[in-house]
């Protein structure tokens, strides 16, 4: 996984609460494998109308915002389904950092597993960032310092310390777990004796 330190890039503002993962990637695209890439399906039904025509008023379609790597959302981003494809679509589209006042729990977990920073800022600061990004079209994220900069604002963000460490180092969770192989085996053996009823038998 690619480590994340600092990012200075094109930013886009999505001034909406409760952007659910069905909006991030509609369910009919969940058949697509990661190898094929999901970037062009990001926000598909918000970017295009029923006839496949571009909706010019959707922020991601703004010609000045192409190649965005930072997305500023609002409250409760990534709520809903557990589809990791929502994170794949963002990452494959080039987004490396999403800023919001809160995130769906499963989405936030999926984000860190794919090197995507889910940065939480206060309600007051998100409005500042949204306005600044709507004007400037750029932002800077610094994971080490836990700050987002846009226009004249530098605002702090929070992120779980364990997730921060993984993102900074680009650590894969499976590699971390491999260190505990013996502990897992010992637990499984002891548990088998303690809870024989817990293993299903038809």
């Amino acid at each position, binding site marked *: 996984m690619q480590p994340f330190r600092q990012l200075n890039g094109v930013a886009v503002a999505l001034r909406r609460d409760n952007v659910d993962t069905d909006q991030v990637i509609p*369910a009919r695209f969940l058949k697509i494998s990661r*190898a094929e890439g999901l970037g062009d399906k990001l926000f598909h039904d918000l970017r295009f109308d029923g006839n496949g025509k571009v909706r010019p008023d959707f922020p991601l379609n703004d010609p000045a915002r192409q190649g965005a790597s930072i997305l500023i959302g609002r*409250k409760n981003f990534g709520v*809903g389904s557990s589809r990791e494809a929502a994170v794949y679509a963002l990452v494959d589209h080039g987004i490396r950092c999403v800023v919001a006042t809160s995130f769906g729990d499963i989405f936030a977990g999926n984000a860190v597993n794919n090197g995507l920073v889910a940065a939480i800022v206060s309600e007051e600061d998100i409005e500042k960032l949204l306005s600044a990004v709507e004007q400037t079209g750029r932002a800077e994220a610094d994971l080490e310092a836990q700050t987002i900069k846009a226009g004249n604002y530098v605002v702090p963000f929070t992120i779980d310390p364990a997730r921060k460490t993984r993102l900074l180092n680009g650590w894969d969770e499976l590699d971390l777990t491999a260190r505990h192989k013996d502990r897992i085996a010992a637990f499984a053996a002891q548990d088998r004796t303690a809870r024989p009823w817990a293993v299903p038998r038809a």
Partner: protein
Amino acid sequence: MTQPLTLFDKIWAQHEILKADNGLSLLWVDRHYVHEGSFQGFDKVDARGERVARPDLTFGIADHYVPTARNRVFNDPSLKHMVDQLVVNTGKHGVMLMGLDDPRQGIVHVVGPEQGLTIPGLIIVCGDSHTATHGALGSIAIGIGASEVSHVLLTQTFWQKKPKRLRVTVDGQCGPGIGAKDIALSIIAKIGTNGAQGHAVEYAGAAIRALTMEGRLTLCNLAIESGARTGMVAPDETTFAYVKGRPFAPKGDDFDRAVEVWRALPSEADAAFDAEVSLDASAIAPVVTWGTSPEDTLPIDAAVPDPAQVADPARAQQMQGALDYMGLKPSQKLTDIRVDRVFIGSCTNARIEDLRAAAAVLAGRKAKVPGLVSAGSTQVKHQAEQEGLDKIFTAAGLTWGESGCSMCIGINGDVVAPGERCASTTNRNFRGRQGPGARTHLMSPAMVAAAAVTGHLADVRPMLSGRA
């Protein structure tokens, strides 16, 4: 003196292999359910050239892409590919599969409890956000993403930060015609779709204790729609009676030993929760959603809200967007909203009691709109047919289909057409959830039946008079 523990704390402690310095716990997984959508997780396992660690604790079920047409014909080869892919992935790794032609097939969150795979005191995971359903039996059940699916496949463990505990107490007694779906949506309306974020929810109180196991499954199914990591109900005699004798449940001495352990699981009387919410069951009305989030819930006798009355301009704009998408006008009475079709199905509300509740309203009546009834499992379907419920549905003019996720998520081809309005027993009214441009109103099976009969959103209660 040891601290009094909650149900959640006790099960967590029994499954915690270790707690790392970074505060994350490595947890043992007792059951891992996989479905067609889990292919991304299997792909990662294959990319590492490794094997599934515990195929005996992994169970495959075909549900998301299966056709509900009577002959199970796929109308699109890409859908068949999804089901075939599950056959290949489970076969390659020696994982049991309840596939398309298996009499045990159904929606994973219906089949797990039905087969006795889901029992109390476990940690259960699945790459599906409605996994919390299984918490109804007193287990920690958590929906996970594809990377976590591959982690569980490879290690039978996953990392979690211990969530906070939230207790939702519903005391009192529900009125006639009001059930678990009304309770669950009323909770979400009260606390919002992020109200339980970062929390494990325990549902408690007299109205919860009074629920059947199927009602508890509906309730916990919707925990995710309040943002919760998981939802659970303490195991009790209702739970033990439900589990006993099911195909995969512990048997004989094993069952007795298990019940002994399960009896010790409920939260201690003075256990502390990080947050508490309470509702009075007698104040809960039959509810429906009007907008594009499950928190947009109102009693059926209310009117569509008016964005002009909302102080927060961002919220008002969001509300107007929802009304535009839904094709509704402010202050319009909910009972004046006409529907184009109905759907009775999904992991939320397609168990036998749900079908009975809908049939009780539909018996001897005709639906004014078309609709699909898809039982939660093939076993539920057979039971419904034995009880003659299928005849009630078809006599009313509805289609009686096979079991699967179907029109809840619309990826098997069962979609609501653009602009069409559907009264649905499902769990999400998100934009496009039942198909691009589809307009979804969530409600209970009895309320969907009432909408079918009247052709508009309607209070089911008057329609129940003189009926069971």
